[in-house]
């Protein structure tokens, strides 16, 4: 049988395609078509939802598999730990300057990682070559985050999520203000689910080769929470226990692992 060509031929295959019941050349043709046809993508999503219910056996997760999964997980880019330099030692005049910590950019694993891998990461981090590579890893991570944020925002309507989060009295809200008294601000709401949302309308647009970057303060540590782009409006970020403050800086495009720029906006819990 010849490869399906017309939209109608492709549409007829969508049910079988959803069940992986087509031949390889048909699969290829359907996938090419799906890339450009939202209507067929929607039909496919419907078929997959029905198939998922047919598969819903309610069996328990198999024992022993989780530990194998944990053992084979790709190592994450290390979270960056910096500290806020005291005013007297900071190169910039402002006391809220964010700068690299004295330990030369030591890295630790993200919360939730097993002890054994954390030890491995600390050992690896000792190699200068890894430290040189940090910028690239930060970029990789931020691309990943940006993509996810776009997708979730598209699916759920981030604005609606943020409005609901702000209305929930259980959530904690912080206001970020300019330490130098400039007329700009941002609001962050920390949900009990562990996601924070940042809203701002007053930050001026940056040139394309710059980005705003969000930092979280955990005691005397400063952790990059992600880049915000040239003109942030809404952003989601992870919050961890012990987050005591937030800061926003202006950095080169892609963000930096450690900032030596003054914080434009700051909030403390």
């Amino acid at each position, binding site marked *: 049988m010849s490869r399906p060509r017309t939209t109608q031929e492709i549409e007829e295959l969508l049910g079988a395609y959803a*069940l992986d019941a087509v031949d390889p050349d048909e699969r290829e043709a359907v996938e090419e078509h799906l890339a450009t046809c939202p209507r067929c993508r929607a039909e496919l999503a419907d078929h*997959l939802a029905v198939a*998922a219910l047919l*598969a819903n056996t*309610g069996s328990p997760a198999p024992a022993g598999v989780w530990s194998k*999964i944990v053992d084979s*997980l790709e190592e994450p880019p290390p979270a960056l730990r910096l500290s806020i330099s005291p005013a007297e030692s900071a190169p910039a005049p402002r006391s809220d300057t964010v700068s690299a910590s004295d330990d030369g950019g030591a890295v630790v694993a993200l919360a939730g990682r097993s002890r054994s891998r954390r030890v491995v990461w600390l050992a690896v981090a000792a190699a200068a070559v890894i430290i040189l590579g940090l910028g690239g890893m930060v970029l990789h991570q931020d691309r990943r985050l940006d993509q996810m944020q776009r*997708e*979730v925002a598209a699916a759920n309507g981030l604005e609606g999520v943020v409005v609901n989060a702000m209305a929930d009295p259980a959530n904690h809200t912080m206001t970020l203000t300019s330490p130098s008294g400039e007329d700009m601000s941002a609001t962050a709401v920390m949900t009990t689910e562990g996601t924070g949302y940042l809203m701002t309308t007053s930050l001026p647009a940056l040139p394309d080769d710059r980005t705003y970057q969000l930092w979280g303060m955990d005691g005397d540590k400063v952790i990059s929470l992600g880049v915000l782009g040239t003109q942030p409006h809404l952003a989601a970020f992870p919050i961890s226990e012990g987050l005591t403050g937030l800061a926003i800086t202006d950095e080169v495009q892609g963000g930096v692992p450690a900032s030596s720029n003054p914080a434009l906006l700051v909030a403390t819990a």
Partner: protein
Amino acid sequence: MDANSLTDASDAVLVIGISRYQENALAEAYRRHAGAVFGLARRLLANPTMAEEIVQEVFVRLWNQPEKFDPERGALRSYLLAQCHGRAVDLLRSETSRRAREERDALHTAEAGYDLEREVLDITAAEQVKRALDRLTEDERKAIELAYLGGHTYREVAAMLREPEGTVKSRIRSGLKKMRVDLVDSGVGGMS
């Protein structure tokens, strides 16, 4: 993000956590969906060890490539099950597992011939799903079951049922559409 708050998080929030390399977010996704993924893989392969390998593959892939999950294209569970199904079917159709498939088919054939309906009814928890299946014509139901739970292509199903290929292809699609209408009407979660 602690483990307690994650149990209340939506799947979309879990995937954000996974994209941030939060292992406890992956653990929660595993807790929610690994049973279904394993059940489907085991049903298709009739081999618990291979099914466990698929579970592992599916969740490691979610960890490594969370951006492949597009919430606009459906729920996380649909996505994970589709990944599992595709992988299991690839294994079934590969030369190396030909023997496994023959053994599985021999087992199923001995038990129930080509009529898998009873098995579907046994393993399908939701009453509404059973009812939606019951409302299909027998031809539609068989075609869907042989393709999805048997791992056969529609051409193979057509040969097994001695029906024209085009007819089987249409029955699969029309059957899935009918089931969807039924399930939406009965308000089954995840259908909108």
